[in-house]
């Protein structure tokens, strides 16, 4: 930050100029970003984590959902600089040691995807819901409220909710 930043040369402006340190899916990374560059673009273009999708680009659809500091956010509405010093989990980071997350297994089992564009964001939000309610019964309206920021135009949500209920039960029985 400098209060005396010189007038910007367009070529200068096109160059990244802020270094951020983030932990992405458990790995520490240092990346140079333009201050208002979207976290979504940094993940996809700089880190090549293309599992995170761009849907609407305006915070409506949730396809770009990732966990930032433990909460789901729309990565299209987060300037990359706000991720500085934070932990980020993307769809690529949910599987542990080659084993799928309980939510991923449940989505496969219930057939919770059709076209697939919403699926990574939906799974990230669902995994957050399941992980933050370990051993708790979550009523269906509450599940739907948690997932309300992730739009799906194919499934009608039935199999998605079914998968989340299944994953919550699996988590409960596995302790």
């Amino acid at each position, binding site marked *: *930050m400098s*209060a005396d*930043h010189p007038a*910007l040369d*367009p070529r200068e*402006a*096109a160059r990244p100029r802020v270094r951020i340190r983030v932990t992405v899916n458990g790995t520490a990374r240092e990346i140079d970003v*333009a*201050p*208002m*560059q*979207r976290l979504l*673009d940094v993940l996809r273009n700089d880190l090549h984590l293309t599992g995170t999708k761009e849907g609407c*680009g*305006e*915070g*409506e659809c*949730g396809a770009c*959902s990732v966990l*930032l500091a433990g*909460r*789901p*956010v*729309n990565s*299209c*509405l*987060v*300037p990359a*600089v*706000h991720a500085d010093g934070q932990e980020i989990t993307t769809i690529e980071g949910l599987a542990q040691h080659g084993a799928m997350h309980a939510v991923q297994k449940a989505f496969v089992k219930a057939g919770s995807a059709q076209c697939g564009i919403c699926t990574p964001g939906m799974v990230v*939000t669902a995994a957050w819901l399941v992980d933050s309610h370990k051993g708790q019964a979550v009523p269906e309206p509450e599940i739907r*409220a*948690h997932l*309300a*920021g*992730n*739009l799906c135009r194919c499934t009608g949500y039935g199999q998605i909710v079914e998968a989340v209920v299944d994953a919550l039960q699996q988590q409960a029985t596995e302790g």
Partner: protein
Amino acid sequence: MQAVMLRDVEVMRPRTLDEALRLLDRAHREGVRLRPMAGCTDVLVDAHFGKALPERFLDVWGLRKELGGLRWTEAGLVIGATCTYAEALETPKFVAELPALAKAASQVGARQIQARGTFAGNVENASPAADAAPMLLALDAQVKLASLQGVRTVPLLNYWSGYRQTVRRPDELITAIVVPAAALGSQGQWFRKVGTRAYQAITKVGLASRLQWQGGKLVDVRLAAISMAATPKRCATLETYLKGRELATIDAAELRHAQAVDLQPIDDVRSNATYRAEVFARLVEQALRETHLATAH
């Protein structure tokens, strides 16, 4: 094109409130527009739609140590400028004392927006369709503004000066929104928004209110209309009509007549004037019934 535009935008990232105020002061003197940003849930949507962005942004997200969180003081609840909806909703005392504001906060977008959006941003964005800001208006909240010239407090009632306009000077920064102590845990807090869906929907028409009954009579009335005027708006005529009345003496036609003096909704992309006026009247009736019932036992 969008990426180029965002790359061209300069962001000032102060480390202290004092530094932030100096930057605002300097930009103001030099005639540079410096727009404060926090959760960016409005700023980056504007950018997406290619709206003209100011030359520079002032990023206050990094000032969360100074401007974040909730603080209960003698004056009331101080909601820091960078306090998000999610932070407030995770605070049981907030939900217990301000149930209708909590309801409004829980219906801003959905969880992803609530993790980033702030009460102060909702107030400054000055949308007539805001969720939390009209409820803050019904709670008599005040806006704390700081600049190098000093600190001042503006009641929310006088804060919105027109469609998407506020009385904040360009060299001022919102440091907090204060909900007065008298409003905390007060009787009759009531909020309902009507949109296309329960979440991820912008309000077609809504009511944020505080209705206090005593001995069967309405002794205190605050009604803030949502998506019914150019700004969230208190309904002076309607409030005067209702004050002192018993539920049985409130006449539906008189209520609608008083409402028409206060509110002249418009037709737009989300709804139309006829629907808005009728649904608003029914929201008032519902709020009256439900808050009356809540105090009846």
